[in-house]
């Protein structure tokens, strides 16, 4: 089965780790996997994407426009920026907490992500989560990427078993942080359970 997952956000949000865990889990489940990441200057606070493609017919390292089964957006503006990748009927998991660019602080256009959230609602099936709120119990935004993975897994559209993802989390995060990461993943799964009922479905 072919599955294309696009992960997007802002440099420093932990999108790379999330994409590596998805790729590793897909391989663990026997798929042939390819991926591509933003590397270099753009990592310094710029827009970043990771493309994870599983299946034998993924030729391009990047997902073509209109092909992604799921958009995992760590920032609402980045979700809109990358919406063209999502296929018709695909699902977007979107963090509603905006990351303001430095230029925004200088210019003050009032960007807070809300207009992005409104726009997305009319465009595709969305699962919204508020990073600020869901990260509170963890005392840090550091585990947000794993919460996002939990939401993606819980939505049922990632095409991967949660056990496999948890196993890969165990391989990718330092052992002293494993417990808190498992809690983060489960928190994400719960959020998905609460919200996925609102989806129109495919």
């Amino acid at each position, binding site marked *: 089965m072919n599955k294309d997952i696009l992960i997007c956000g*802002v*440099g*420093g949000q932990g999108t790379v780790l999330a994409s590596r865990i998805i*790729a*590793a889990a897909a*391989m663990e489940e026997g798929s*042939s*996997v*390819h*991926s*591509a*990441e933003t*590397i*270099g*200057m*753009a*990592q*310094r*606070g*710029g*827009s970043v994407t990771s493309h994870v493609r599983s299946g034998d*017919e*993924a*030729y*391009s*390292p*990047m997902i*073509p*426009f*209109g*092909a992604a089964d799921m958009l995992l957006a760590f920032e609402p*503006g980045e979700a*809109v*920026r990358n*919406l*063209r990748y*999502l*296929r*018709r009927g695909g699902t977007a998991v979107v963090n509603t907490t*905006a990351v*303001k*660019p*430095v*230029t*925004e*602080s*200088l210019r*003050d*256009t009032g*960007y807070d992500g809300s*207009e*992005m959230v409104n*726009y997305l609602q009319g*465009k*595709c099936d969305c699962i919204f989560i508020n990073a600020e709120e869901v990260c509170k119990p963890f005392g*840090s*935004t550091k585990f947000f990427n794993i919460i996002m993975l939990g939401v993606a897994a819980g939505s049922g559209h990632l095409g991967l078993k949660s056990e496999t993802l948890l196993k890969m989390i165990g391989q990718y995060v330092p052992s002293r942080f494993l417990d808190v990461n498992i809690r983060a993943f489960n928190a994400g799964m719960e959020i998905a359970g609460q919200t996925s009922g609102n989806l129109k479905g495919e």
Partner: protein
Amino acid sequence: MKQYVMGNGAIALGALSAGVRLVAGYPGTPSSEIIETVSRAPHEGVHLEWSVNEKAALEVAAAAAYSGARAMVTMKQMGLNVASDPLMSVAYIGVKGGLVIVSADDPGPISSQTEQDTRRYADFCRIPVFDPASPEEAYEMIREAFAYSEKYNTPVLFRPTTRVCHAYAAIETPDSFAPGPCDGFVRDPGRWVIFPRLSYMNHGKIEQRNVEIGKDFSSFRFNTVEGTGSGKAVVTSGVSYNYVRECLKGHDGIRLIRVATAFPFPEDFMLKALDGVQEVLCVEELSPYIEEQILKTAGKHHLALKVSGKLDGSVPHNGENSVELCSAILDRFLGIRTGLAQTDVSDAPELPVRPPVLCAGCPHRASFYAVKQAMKGRQAVFCGDIGCYTLGNAMPLDMVDTCLCMGAGITMAQGLNHMNEGVTCFAFVGDSTFFASGITGVVNAVYNEADIILCVLDNSTTAMTGHQPHPGTGRNMMGNAVEKVSIEKVLEGIGVRKILTVDPLNLDEAVYAVEQCAEEKGVRAIVFRSPCVAITKPQGKCAVEAAKCVNCRKCIREIGCPALTTVDGAVTIDRNLCTGCGLCSHICPVHAIGGEKG
């Protein structure tokens, strides 16, 4: 063993599996992870180094290949410009052990100053070039590259592009690697000492040999033809081959020709592949190299062939290709409909712009700010260079007036000085760039009596490319602690009379150092020393005392730190980003920003 690796990792593992015995290079996106992968993989018996620059790397590796060992050099495309001097000459001399020069091209350009095409260098130097389309191919092809290098006793170029370098795939590799043999250098001045007579002789032999290699490449397994359709054909290379394949899914039979060895051009292969074809579309990135070769072949063999590509405007000259671009080009050429249904986003709200910026707490920000403060109201010009600190050009710092190539800031400041009287000319250079190509510029300044202020921004690493060590860091890629090459002592040895060293995060001291230098003549140097925040633990966190803050926003306006934002109209410091550098607390006119040691 199955390993999920980046294209650059595949190149490294392929070279190790081919028995490479020496690997040298200089960091540069998109090539840097090749050497980093070698260092993490089992590589006992392999000499591994970050050389001081690409020219040094190629010379080190060429001598290893003279000694009979397999050697690899890695760099980005512009690094090949630096290495072009030894490259041209070693092409005449040839090698004994395989010598593969990896030069990663960057269509877009995504992280580079130019959109140059390494395949042109291959043609220019008359040496073979290999062009992989994916990480899996890169792994296989680099091993072939070593074999061809030894078969024809010539250095060869290996040219991946960014999207191949940074793509990930699973590669099957041996569990361990063993370096190949090294017979040792055998003296033979008639072979290894370049003289006009030898170059004349070898030039003739090389051209004859290249005809042979072109024939050999005609059966190279990565030069492929798919589909039996006649009339129209698509010719492609590198990652564009995979973009085209992605587009042509479900459109079987279209003739797709892929050339993985642009030089020496596999003419016999192409003639056969074009049999029954009247119209051909060339889809390649950077320069229309294959397109030109096909035109040449068509002329030579009187083929009635219409050739489309960059030269007739069918494919853009600049920028990288993509599935979407290829889809549009193929649709026009083939009269078919490729591409998927897309969500219409033409009505999307305006998106936030996210240019790359210096990290929160970056000491470069403090260095630039100190110079800016010290030179307020005076005429000054600021020559930048290549590295994170190029980002000093962004508002509100706006402290980069020129940027050209590695090390150029130091010498360009001299040219500006000679032509612009009364203007204080500054050159900013990073520590790694200083060692790579800054030192000769300082010698030039001292010798030719320039009045410049050299600012060495020493953050103890090569930050932009992923924190590689360099001669000033005291460790090398063999894992050894070595004597640190002192920037101050180098400057002193060259004859720079005034050399000051300051911590840029101590703003008053840093401003005073610049003011002192501005009063003097000759070559003055300030070493701004503070480690990169990405490799050090944060010193603490700063916070705004809401009761004291008058919301003048001077902190935001003056330094543009990403940790400084406004929440509900009030200036706030993002604790997740702040490193406690304290620069903003020096700027606040009402002392509303305090530090907190973490």
